[in-house]
C-alpha cells in the first residue's frame, strides 16, 4: 500500500512524544551539575551514588518483594479460579456473574480500587493491627487486582488446550493427582507463566493503589520518585529512571525477539 507523505511525519511525531522526555532524562543523568539543568560536563558519578543510596536500594528491594509475593499469591488464586470456572458445568447465571466479577478490576479506574481498599483496611484495622498501612496492605492490594489478569490469561489457555487430553488420561485410569500434575498443569504452564509475568509487570507499574494504601516505612520505587519530585530532584533519580527505562526496553525487546523466533520456527 502507498501511504500519503504526512503519515510517516505524524508517526515520527508520535515516536518523539514517546521518547523525547525519556531521552532528556538519560542525558541529564550524565550531567555533572548538582543543581539545575545547565550542562557541567560528562560524569557517571550519579550511577555510582545511586547504587550506594540507602533509600533507593530499600525502595528497589520493597518493589521486588512486593512484586514477587503478590504475584505468587495472585497466580495460585487466579489459576485455581480459572480452572474451577472452566471445568465445572456452572449454571449460566453463575458464569455471567463471574465474568462480570473478573472483569470488574480490569475496567474500574485504579483510583477507585485504591480508595475502596483504603476504606476496607480502615475497617479491618479495628479488628486486627495487621492491617496497618505498610507492606501487608500493599501485598493484599496488589494481589487483589492481579488475580483478574492471571485468570483472564489462564482461561484463554484453558479454552485452547480443550478437554481431550484430560479425558484421555481418565480413560487410561489416571487418578486426580496424576491428572493435575502430569496433564493439566504442564499443558497450562505457558498460560500460567504469561499470567504471572503480566501480574508482576502490573505490580511494578502500579503507583496509584500503592500511593493510597502504603504506610511511612514501605516505599516502592515509583513512590520514591514521586516523593523526590516533591522534595527536590537529585541527579541520582535521573540515573535511577534511566536504568529502569533501559531495563524495561531490553526486557520487552528480548521477549519480542524470542516470540518472533518461536513463531518463525514451524514455517521452516
Amino acid at each position: 500500500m502507498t501511504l500519503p507523505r504526512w503519515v510517516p511525519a505524524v508517526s515520527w511525531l508520535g515516536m518523539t512524544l514517546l521518547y523525547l522526555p525519556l531521552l532528556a532524562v538519560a542525558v541529564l543523568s550524565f550531567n555533572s551539575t548538582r543543581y539545575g539543568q545547565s550542562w557541567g560536563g560528562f560524569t557517571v558519578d550519579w550511577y555510582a551514588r545511586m547504587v550506594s543510596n540507602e533509600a533507593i536500594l530499600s525502595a528497589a528491594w520493597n518493589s521486588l518483594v512486593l512484586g514477587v509475593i503478590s504475584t505468587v499469591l495472585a497466580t495460585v488464586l487466579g489459576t485455581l479460579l480459572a480452572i474451577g470456572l472452566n471445568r465445572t458445568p456452572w449454571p449460566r447465571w453463575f458464569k455471567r456473574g463471574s465474568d462480570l466479577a473478573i472483569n470488574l478490576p480490569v475496567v474500574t479506574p485504579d483510583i477507585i480500587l485504591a480508595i475502596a481498599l483504603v476504606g476496607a483496611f480502615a475497617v479491618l484495622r479495628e479488628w486486627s493491627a495487621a492491617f496497618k498501612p505498610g507492606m501487608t496492605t500493599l501485598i493484599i492490594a496488589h494481589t487483589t487486582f492481579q488475580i483478574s489478569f492471571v485468570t483472564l490469561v489462564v482461561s484463554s489457555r484453558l479454552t485452547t488446550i480443550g478437554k481431550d487430553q484430560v479425558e484421555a488420561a481418565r480413560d487410561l485410569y489416571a487418578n486426580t493427582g496424576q491428572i493435575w500434575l502430569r496433564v493439566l498443569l504442564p499443558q497450562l504452564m505457558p498460560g500460567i507463566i504469561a499470567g504471572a509475568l503480566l501480574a508482576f509487570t502490573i505490580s511494578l507499574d502500579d503507583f496509584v493503589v500503592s500511593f493510597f494504601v502504603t504506610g511511612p516505612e514501605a516505599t516502592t520505587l515509583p513512590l520514591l520518585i514521586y516523593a523526590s519530585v516533591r522534595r527536590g530532584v537529585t541527579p541520582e533519580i535521573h540515573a535511577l529512571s534511566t536504568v529502569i527505562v533501559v531495563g524495561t526496553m531490553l526486557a520487552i525487546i528480548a521477549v519480542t525477539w524470542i516470540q518472533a523466533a518461536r513463531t518463525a520456527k514451524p514455517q521452516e
Partner: protein
Amino acid sequence: MRANTCGWNSRQTTCWSCAIKPVIIHDGYLTTKPHLYGRGALLVGLAFLWMGVFLFAPLAGLSALAFASRGEYGGVEWTFTWENLSRLAGHDEFGFSWNHLLILWRSVVLAAVTTVLCLLIGFPMAFWIAARPAAARPLLLALVMVPSCVNLVIRTYAWQQFLGSQMPAAWVAQHLGLVPDGASLYPTVTAVYLGMVSAMLPFTVLPLYTSVERLDWSLVEAARDLHAGRLRTFRHGILAQCMPGLLAATILTFIPSLGMFVISDMLGGAKFLLVGNLIQQQFGSMNNWPFGATAGLFLVIASLFALWGLRIVSEREAGRR
C-alpha cells in the same frame, strides 16, 4: 449427550458409591453432581472469597460511603445524607460555587480531547507500522509499547525535566517570547496535554494496529474503482473496517484518562484539578472520605456512560453493514 452414545443414561443409573444420587459423566469420568460442584466451588471459592473481602465488599462500602456524613473530627458517621452529592453539584456551606462542577467538566474535556489527539496521531502510526516489512513490525510495535511499561510517574517526571527552564524547549519558547525569561514550561495546560497524549498513545496504537493489519484492501480498491473520492474511500473503505479497533482504542484511552491524577498533579500545578486530584485531596489532607467517595462515584458513572455510549455507536455501526 455423551451418556447416550456410550450406553449410560444419567437419569436412570444411580451412583455406585452412595446409591442415591444420579451419576453424570464429566471430563470422561463418572461423578455425582454434589461431588462435581463441590470440587468446582472449592477451586473457585478461594479466589472469590479473597475478591469478596478485598474488592466487592469494599466497592459496595464505597457506594454507601458516598451517602454517609463526615464526623466532627474527620471520621465517618453512618447517617444518610444527600449533602455530598449536592456539594459536588456546587452547593456548600457558603452558597453556590462553580468549583466542583468545573473540576468535573475539566476532567471530561481533558479525557475527550486527549482521546481525539491520540486517535489523530495513533491512526497514522498504525498504518505506518502495518506498511513496514513483516520482520520489522513486531519490533516497531514493541518500541511503541515500551514506554507504557515504564512507570507513569517516571514518564511524567521525565516531561518535567524536558520542559524545565534550562532545557532547549524552554529556551526556544523564551526566545519566541511565549514565556518570560527563566521560566519553565510547566505547570501549564499544554504540559498536561503533552503528558497525557504520550502516556495514552501506546494504548491507542495497539488496538488500531490490530484492525489495520487485518484490513481487506480489496474493498479499498473496489471503492476506488467505483470512482469514490479520497475522503469517501477512506470513510467507507477503511474507516468502516477499522471500527472495532477504533472503538477499543477510544475505550482504552478515554476511561483511564478520566481517572488520571498523577499527570495533572505533576504537570498542571495546583490550579489544574481533576476528579482524581479531588478524590486524592479528600482522602488525604482534607480528610473528608464521604465526599471523596461521592467524587469516586461520579468517576465510575461517567466511565459507565462512556462505555454505554460507545456500545450504542458500535451496534449502530454493525447494523449499517
